[in-house]
């Protein structure tokens, strides 16, 4: 039971469509694992299961040995599983700093009435949160933008802010849903470097979805390939590149079934 994170026989159906079929996954602490597959393969569905946005039809999710299947999203986040979104979901009308500070809210000790009456204990906590949020912004090179509206940042920085916000949860497991979508090669190289740097500084396990094969092959130690909800391959990047089923799923080919 000393598993770090485990998905066990997850199946999700939307009406008659089987989005994910008997998906199993085992993550070791500190790993970088990629999930790839053609469009509509069920990758984001897997992420939604892990982060609690969807409850699986059958199967179990284990986090550090505990069954967390079907728990509400905010509880799962508090246990230490943070995510980013495929299409950026910042709080656009709040400042960059406030965006990060929202992530600290769940561990706030003061009660609402302490905040309402502006008691010194609350104010101390607030200034502590502020400086902590600034360290995360510095980490991602966004500290000079802390007072900007998040919605007015350029695309690349919005992606970074999303990572900063997820990192502020202090997650054990970080889920990145297409972290380099829409980035040019040099930007995605930078992001890969950033993820490696963050892993050196924080005890972080990374599970990511990405279509940029170069990025995935460079960064991930292990890759799982989904197609039509079925796991068709699993292994190191080198193994995946040679796998006939993967080649078929991506490039098409004669049916060998």
């Amino acid at each position, binding site marked *: 039971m000393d598993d770090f994170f485990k998905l066990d026989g997850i199946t999700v159906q939307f009406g008659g469509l089987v989005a994910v079929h008997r998906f199993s996954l085992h993550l070791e602490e500190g790993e970088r694992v990629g999930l790839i597959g053609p469009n509509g393969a069920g990758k984001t569905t897997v992420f939604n299961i892990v982060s609690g946005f969807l409850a699986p039809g059958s199967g179990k999710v284990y986090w550090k040995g505990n069954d967390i299947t079907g728990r509400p999203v905010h509880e799962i986040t*508090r246990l230490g599983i943070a995510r980013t979104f495929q299409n950026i979901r910042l709080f656009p009308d*709040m400042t960059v700093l406030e965006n990060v500070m929202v992530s600290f809210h769940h561990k706030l000790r003061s009660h*609402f009435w302490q905040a309402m*009456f502006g008691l010194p204990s609350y104010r101390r906590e607030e200034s502590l949160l502020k400086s902590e949020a600034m360290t995360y912004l510095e980490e991602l090179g966004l500290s000079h933008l802390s007072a900007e509206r998040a919605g007015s940042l350029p695309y690349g920085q919005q992606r970074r802010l999303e990572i900063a916000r997820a990192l502020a949860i202090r997650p054990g497991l970080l889920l990145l849903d297409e972290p380099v979508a829409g980035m040019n090669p040099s930007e995605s190289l930078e992001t890969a470097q950033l993820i490696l740097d963050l892993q050196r500084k924080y005890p972080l396990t990374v599970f990511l979805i990405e279509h940029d094969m170069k990025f995935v092959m460079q960064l991930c130690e292990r890759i799982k390939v989904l197609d039509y909800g079925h796991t068709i391959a699993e292994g190191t990047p080198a193994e995946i590149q040679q796998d006939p089923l993967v080649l078929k799923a991506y490039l098409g080919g004669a049916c060998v079934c």
Partner: protein
Amino acid sequence: MDRDRLKIFLNGVTLVAVFLVLFAFSRYGTDYQVRILNNMAIFITLAVSYNLVNGYCGILHLGPNAFVAIGAYTSALLTMTPAEKQMNFIIQPIVWPLNVIEVPFVLSLLAAGLTATLFAFLISFPVFRVRGDYLAIVTLGFGEVVRVLCNALQNVTNGPLGLKGLSPCTNLWWTWGVAVLSMVVISRLIHSSYGRALKAIREDETAARAMGVDPFQHLLLAFLISAFFSGVAGGLLAHLITTISPTLFTFLLTFNLLIMIVVGGLGSTTGAVIGAMLFAWGGEALRIVEKPMDLGFVIIPGIPGMRMVIFSLLLMLVILFARRGIMGRSELNWEVILTRLDRLRRP
């Protein structure tokens, strides 16, 4: 650090100034002026607390009239003497224990707030299961149900006859005291971590959940605080006009509050205050357009209802030229003013 002290000092000065103005009006003002000021303060309390839910949480809640009604009835029934109640309830006698209870005004206001909060808590479970237009309809329905109940519960609310002859306990100090308290408390909440969580829910509920914010818990908090102040304001209103009946708390009340916060700027406490003040004062100030006017070459006879036409036109102009209300989502506080002044000094 210096700046914080300056802000505290300026806030103190503002409070003293408000105190002096109120003192002057309570001494030398006419009844008419005092009445407008009282209305203004009650509207401020209502608008600021309504804005907490509609502006900051981004929830279209259309039932504040229910909480105002509950507050008004609760406090009225608690302050009336048993003899007065007997005189009022001529069709059916009032139920026990309301027929014997009589409490001081302060306690009745507190009870008004708490009763409204209790009702808010009870309806929050169905209300927050839905969002958007659906939530608007659920709360609208709740407002209607409360009004209908006020009409139907003859032995509790005296039905359509209403309650008459309440003691006029409300004065400038009460109304403005509550208004200032609601402003301070709500703006503190909004600028705290809780306020950030509420705004995060407004901006993107999915992302807020993924960041560990429980939407139900936070929306409930805002909803209850809002209901509490609406209830207290209802109690003040009842003891200001001294006669209440179900017709006072129709959807029109909610609609007026909605106008105030939209004109002031959804999601701005200062905006809500400005909206409420304009609404309370503007309606009266525009009375001049209903008087006969002599323009020299032509004499316009007074047209009753003209001020509502002008008022509507003004509203349309505000929304046309300031689409997000007068203040938008920004606030006008000492921090903003001092920053502006600094910029002027050092261009």
